[in-house]
């Protein structure tokens, strides 16, 4: 599903070149529930950008769902993100002027789905995340947990194989964070590959596999218990 081989990512910061990723090789299979952890500056955000096709590696190869990423044009990468990946962000990243249902429909619009189909699907997804009665509210009228559930619904809009969550509980209190994690676990059980990027050990221990990054390299890659809350 996700195959990274000796991936390197260099950044230019002023005159110095920073090696954000320094030869990362990871394989994540379909249906896995993985946490990528590490202290800040370890390169986990860069790794998330590479996995999410928001950025391309400077070196090495990355194959996503049999698609070799790297030799693609920006617009093709946009299509790959649209179809293959469901993003969940720490700050939710919902569009403030749009209602919950409009936010969920957005990726489907870019996938050129018909308006009636879009609406039907968005309603279904919002019901699934328990926001059937909040569909026409704007993000500012929703609590943090509700906003994160809208973004989960949005991540599922185009039925992606992979859910990529960047600190999904970072902006939430423990209880709502835990609820969000439970939802991600349920998604994993329904067959989605779920990758969480976090610095929170509590969160990481609830997944099934924990990859630790340090200085742009894989420090450890261990199976964890997937313990319940």
């Amino acid at each position, binding site marked *: 599903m996700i195959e990274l081989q000796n991936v390197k990512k260099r950044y230019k910061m002023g005159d110095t070149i920073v090696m954000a990723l320094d030869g990362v090789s990871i394989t994540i299979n379909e249906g896995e529930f993985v946490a990528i952890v590490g202290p800040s500056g370890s390169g986990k955000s860069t790794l998330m*950008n590479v996995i*999410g096709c*928001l*950025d391309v590696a400077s070196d090495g190869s990355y194959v996503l769902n049999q698609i070799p990423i790297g030799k693609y044009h*920006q*617009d093709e990468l*946009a*299509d790959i*993100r*649209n*179809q293959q990946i469901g*993003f969940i*962000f720490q700050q939710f*990243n*919902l*569009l403030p*002027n*749009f209602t919950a249902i409009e936010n969920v429909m*957005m*990726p489907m*619009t*870019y*996938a*050129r789905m018909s*308006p009636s189909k879009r609406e039907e699907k968005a309603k279904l997804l919002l019901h699934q995340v328990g926001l059937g009665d909040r569909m026409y509210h704007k993000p500012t009228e929703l609590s943090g947990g509700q906003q994160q559930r809208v973004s989960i619904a*949005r991540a599922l809009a*185009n039925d992606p194989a992979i859910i990529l969550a960047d600190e999904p509980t970072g902006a939430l209190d423990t209880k709502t964070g835990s609820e969000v994690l439970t939802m991600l676990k349920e998604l994993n059980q329904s067959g989605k590959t779920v990758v969480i990027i976090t610095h929170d050990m509590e969160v990481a221990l609830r997944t099934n596999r924990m990859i630790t990054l340090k200085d742009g390299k894989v420090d450890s890659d261990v199976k964890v218990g997937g313990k319940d809350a």
Partner: protein
Amino acid sequence: MLKEYMVIAAKSVLAHKIRALLTTLGVIIGVASVILLMSLGDSARNEAANQIRSIGSNLIFINVTDREGTLDRNWLKNIETNAQIAASSEMVSGNATYNVEGKDVIVSISGVNENYAFISNLSMSQGRFISEFDIESNVPVAVLGSKIGNLLFPNQEIIGNTILVQGVPFTVVGEVAERGTNFSGDNDMMVYIPMDYARSLYPSFVRNKTYYVAAESEETIDFTMNRIRLYLDTVLPSTDQYRMFSQTQILGVLDTLMGLLTTLLSGIASISLIVGGIGIMNIMLVTVRERTREIGIRKALGARRNQILIQFLIEAIIITTLGGILGLFVSYLGAMAITALTDFDVVIGWTAVMLSLAFSISIGVIFGIYPASTASKLEPVDALRYE
């Protein structure tokens, strides 16, 4: 997809109503002034054309400097049949000053013959014009322009009254209906007297002769002019001693001039459209910057570059079109005000409307493309990180 773009654009415009309105102000002012000036120019052109047409479109003016006195007094009469002249009149002009309530009022005196009323399409509001008998028998009669009666004979019967011209008394026999001002001056401030009287009252003008000629019809005007030219070229010692032009030529020159003026003024006004466009580009650049995060989110979730470009371009076009419509509205109000406050009838033509809408849309495209392309080129990673 277009509908979605419109919704997105409408939402973002509505989210900043005051800003959108201020942004469009330049376009509003630009469109309003362009439309108003174009319509004003057109109305002025029509007005002038109508005025000239009312004098007669088969009219020919001849101006001769007859230093040697070679021209026969009745030369036009002599070639009348040959040149297909319907009627002709010489005109000798002078001034007379009258004291009205302590102020000097200058009145134009025109010596003409009985044909002048027909040639110049004069209509009488009362009495009659100078007759053939008046001319032949040298009767001292005068016909007044419409403003003169009230000025010189307030609250008096005009017909039968006496007016003094250079000390010579003339009996008023008629009054001309209101005609307004044209290139020959204020027609309503004119006094017409028989030709021969004018000749003796204003001897200094005798060498410089002005003639009014009516061709038989508008179609034969060129023929008549050619015949007159032929005659004058033979009789006069040099061809630069006379000038001749027709009403149609004056109309053409005037039309060209007015058109030029309108174009020039509209051109100046359209500078404000460009300034307005720059304002829009500026605000769109600010908008793009403010919405960097939104652009990042949209790109992360699958928006292609073109889709972002079109989104922001449509937003710019919506703002400028809004400005165009408001500007149109303002120009309508302006036209109504001008029509109500002056005797000028300003009509906003469809050309002006279409042109201004086309203008405002193009301004949206021209000045929106750069900000939109800036937005579309943002890297999703950078845009998402932007706070």
